[in-house]
């Protein structure tokens, strides 16, 4: 019975990942992240993704504060924040977030404020979708480990 539960959960994980790859939400760099997880760092993916969430939310908050300021004109700062987001999103394989950040960056390079505001909304939307999917993935992983009788330290 336990075996069936583990198999079913593994199938759910595989299906979710396949869907995320198919939608272009994730790319091969997420696979590299998984391949780097080993016995010396068994929670590597979880840890790195959570660092990504922490960093990204700070950057997105700063971007929103900058753009909501009526006196705003510092597009260079927008560019610097977006470079960080592009970089970390690329590194974890968050392809769609990376791509919409690149589009947002193009608007900032043209000092296009309406374009930047639209860009920010799109990035926030994609980021939150990714975050929800990652939480779902981690929950399934945790259930699978519990079903397999392994303690998952959180």
């Amino acid at each position, binding site marked *: 019975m336990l075996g069936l539960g583990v198999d079913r959960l593994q199938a759910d994980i595989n299906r979710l990942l396949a869907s995320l790859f198919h939608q272009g939400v994730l790319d091969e760099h997420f696979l590299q992240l998984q391949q780097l997880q080993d016995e010396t760092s068994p929670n590597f993916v979880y840890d790195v993704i959570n660092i990504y969430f*922490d960093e990204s939310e700070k950057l997105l908050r700063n971007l929103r504060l900058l753009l909501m300021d009526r006196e705003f004109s510092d597009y260079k700062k927008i560019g610097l924040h977006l470079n960080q987001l592009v970089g970390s999103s690329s590194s974890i394989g968050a392809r769609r977030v990376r791509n919409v950040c690149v589009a947002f960056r193009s608007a900032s390079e043209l000092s296009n404020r309406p374009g930047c505001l639209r860009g920010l909304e799109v990035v926030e939307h994609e980021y939150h979708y990714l975050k929800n999917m990652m939480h779902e993935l981690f929950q399934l992983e945790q259930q699978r480990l519990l079903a397999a009788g392994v303690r998952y330290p959180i």
Partner: protein
Amino acid sequence: MTREELPNLAESKLTALVVDDNFVNQSIHQKLLARLGITNEVVCNGKEAVDAHCSGRNYDLILMDMDMPIMNGIQATKRLREMGIESKIAGVTTRANEGEKKEFMEAGLNDFQEKPLTISKLLSILHKFDFYVQT
């Protein structure tokens, strides 16, 4: 490349310094190096990299990000070369137009790779520096 096919360079006792202000990239770059058996440390900007060398530390390889606060990768690379540091320095950056890349190389880099860094790109860097010979 599977884990079994990866070279283990632990016997070479190579050391590396990761210079990057982004914590996600720090984690991944450190793990990539560790996977190949390369002992490594991390600092958050160019000034910390320079300070590490001023305190007497030395590394075979430096992975240098370009855009960092306080002291960026171009400034740090120039400074390290002025100090006589002969370590192999590989610039690793998310994006660089040809002008920025040229400026970074002219600062004293030995190699340049675009992020995201992968095992293949890291092995390419190590191979170029003769730290790793493919068999």
